[in-house]
């Protein structure tokens, strides 16, 4: 090799070392400066102690490890306690939604009729189809009568001078809502319409009669003493009826009668759900205590099955479901024998259930509505699996999974022609002890039950 080549290699090596500069660790100078300040005898002492080395006892690591595990458990428990509070909120929120659903249902049921006072302002519920109106006997009576009179039948009154239609429920409602003010108001009205005291009293009596009975006959008005004080001046509708409910120019809502107006009685389809599941055995219940060494983990399960519904009418139906795959899981960890053990319980079963479903909206024409469902179920276990670190007391937990319980669901349904899609919240609670009866411990001493709460979705075909 030439001398030039040799130099080149040497330079390369030198450069590579020069470039490979590393920063000295911090604290080195501090240590050196302290050593410099030491006297010779102090430095000898330092060196003497640095020279010796004693191996750490073998038991030390085991003890340290145990303490670290205990630390983790306590940290986990603290974390769990915080999370438990979150669970309380989640359960409360879900409960609130269910209560809200029930509240909405109750409100809708109680307010029957209030939403369908008159067809003019309602998109969904016609009081009458126009053709029914035109061809009715009621209309004939109306057209043949004096245009100044009020024509009534048992269900509704038409005030000819305004062309209003309203039914008895309006009057009932107004009577209730106006209460004792009715007489005062009518007095005012009558005065402003130039009635003398006699006719005013008669009219008051007549209209009170109308309000209370919801029926006004032509005779009532004929009894008025003078034609000059005819009822036409009274402007009855504006007195009787809330202006928000009635408007002067009512037009009939014409709704096409389609072939699908006939109710579809049967529905068949699929249902599935994802749930937060619980198996409340003695460990899990203990885990709910604030200072427990058991830490319950969030566990999820699912259900898949088929569903068949029979609709009694637009409002109510009965539902039968068969869930061929249901899983309920419970995971938790616990501290025992100086260690943290993890356990996973899974129960797989089939479920048969029935429930009554209530459509919370009253209209037959609406294709979207809230539903409330309540019922019962029976489960038959297929498989029970217990995984994790098995300890000596594992004989405590054996399950059969056969159960009977109740269920509640609040949801929303969409109907597209013959397809129905529904989704919402569901909750189920088992009523039986699912523990197995063992020779060592009878099952009455180790009560365990299943619970779940989650969301569901179902799609069905109507026929």
């Amino acid at each position, binding site marked *: 090799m030439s001398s030039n080549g040799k130099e080149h290699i040497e330079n390369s090596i030198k450069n590579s070392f020069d470039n490979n500069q590393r920063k000295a*660790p*911090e*604290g080195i100078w*501090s*240590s050196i400066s*302290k*050593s410099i300040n*030491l*006297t*010779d*005898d*102090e*430095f*000898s*002492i*330092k*060196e*003497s*102690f*640095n*020279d*010796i*080395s*004693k*191996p*750490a*006892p073998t*038991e*030390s*690591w085991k*003890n*340290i*490890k145990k*303490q*670290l595990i205990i*630390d*983790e458990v306590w940290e986990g428990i603290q974390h769990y306690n915080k999370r438990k509070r979150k669970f309380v909120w989640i359960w409360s929120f879900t409960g609130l939604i269910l209560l809200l659903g029930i509240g909405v249902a109750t409100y809708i049921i109680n307010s029957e009729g209030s939403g369908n006072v008159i067809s003019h302002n309602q998109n969904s519920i016609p009081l009458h189809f126009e053709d029914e109106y035109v061809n009715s006997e009621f209309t004939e009576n109306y057209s043949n009568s004096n245009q100044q009179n009020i024509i009534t039948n048992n269900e509704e009154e038409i005030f000819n001078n305004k062309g209003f239609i309203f039914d008895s429920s309006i009057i009932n409602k107004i009577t209730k809502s106006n209460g004792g003010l009715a007489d005062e108001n009518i007095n005012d009205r009558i005065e402003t319409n130039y009635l003398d005291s006699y006719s005013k009293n008669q009219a008051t009596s007549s209209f009170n009669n109308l309000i209370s009975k919801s029926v006004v006959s032509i005779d009532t008005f004929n009894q008025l003493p003078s034609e000059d004080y005819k009822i036409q001046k009274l402007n009855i509708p504006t007195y009787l009826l809330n202006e928000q409910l009635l408007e002067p120019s009512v037009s009939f809502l014409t709704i096409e009668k389609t072939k699908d107006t006939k109710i579809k009685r049967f529905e068949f389809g699929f249902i599935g759900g994802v749930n937060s599941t619980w198996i409340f055995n003695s460990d899990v219940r203990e885990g709910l205590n604030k200072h427990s060494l058991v830490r319950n983990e969030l566990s999820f399960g699912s259900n898949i099955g088929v569903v068949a519904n029979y609709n009694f009418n637009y409002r109510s139906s009965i539902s039968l479901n068969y869930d061929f795959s249901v899983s309920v899981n419970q995971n938790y960890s616990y501290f025992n024998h100086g260690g943290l053990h993890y356990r996973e319980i899974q129960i797989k079963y089939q479920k048969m259930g029935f429930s009554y479903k209530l459509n919370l909206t009253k209209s037959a024409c609406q294709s979207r509505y809230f539903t409330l469902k309540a019922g019962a179920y029976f489960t038959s276990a297929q498989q029970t699996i217990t995984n994790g670190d098995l300890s000596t007391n594992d004989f405590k937990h054996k399950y059969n999974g056969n159960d009977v319980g109740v269920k509640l669901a609040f949801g929303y349904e969409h109907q597209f022609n013959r397809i129905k899609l529904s989704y919402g919240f569901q909750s189920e609670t088992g009523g039986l002890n699912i523990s197995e009866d063992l020779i060592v411990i009878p099952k009455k001493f180790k009560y365990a039950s299943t619970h779940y709460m989650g969301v569901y979705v179902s799609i069905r075909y109507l026929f």
Partner: protein
Amino acid sequence: MNQKKPYQYSDEELVKGSLGRDKYYQELLYRKYADGMFTIACSYSDNDDEAADILQEGFIKVFRKLKQHDTTKSLGGWIKRIVVNTALESYRKKTRHLEVVEDYYNDESVGYNIFENTNSINIIKYVNDLPPKAKMVLKLYAVEGYAHQEIATALNISVGTSKSQLSRAKSLLRTMLKSSNE
């Protein structure tokens, strides 16, 4: 895949693994520093059992406070500091009702190394034979490199007491050596 051998892991890897609650990394970190720390614990205690307690307590603190460790600084130094402080806590508990000593020793520097012809084992023996407070101050000052202010804080004494205890320790050592040579 070849698994790394314990000594091949850097401090940074050990810290990261230990922070992830991985028992393997925690044990590796312990194994790496346990012997050195046990030696230190022994130097601040009267027997091995006491030293083992200090070691355990020290390492538990290490793992609990590992998040606070500044990775730009030496891990060994940080652990050592914790173990020494643990030993001092143990010492404080032990000597709460002991030793009322005078603070007025003067530093009589002799100008030469009194241990010039003494081997390490004897030096350690002489140091360990010192009265507890003097021994503690001497070790903290000479071996651990603490300043008097730090010693005063660690032992809950005044700076003056720390200085006088150091002088006292040296004076006692000279006396011991002198008597052993005679």
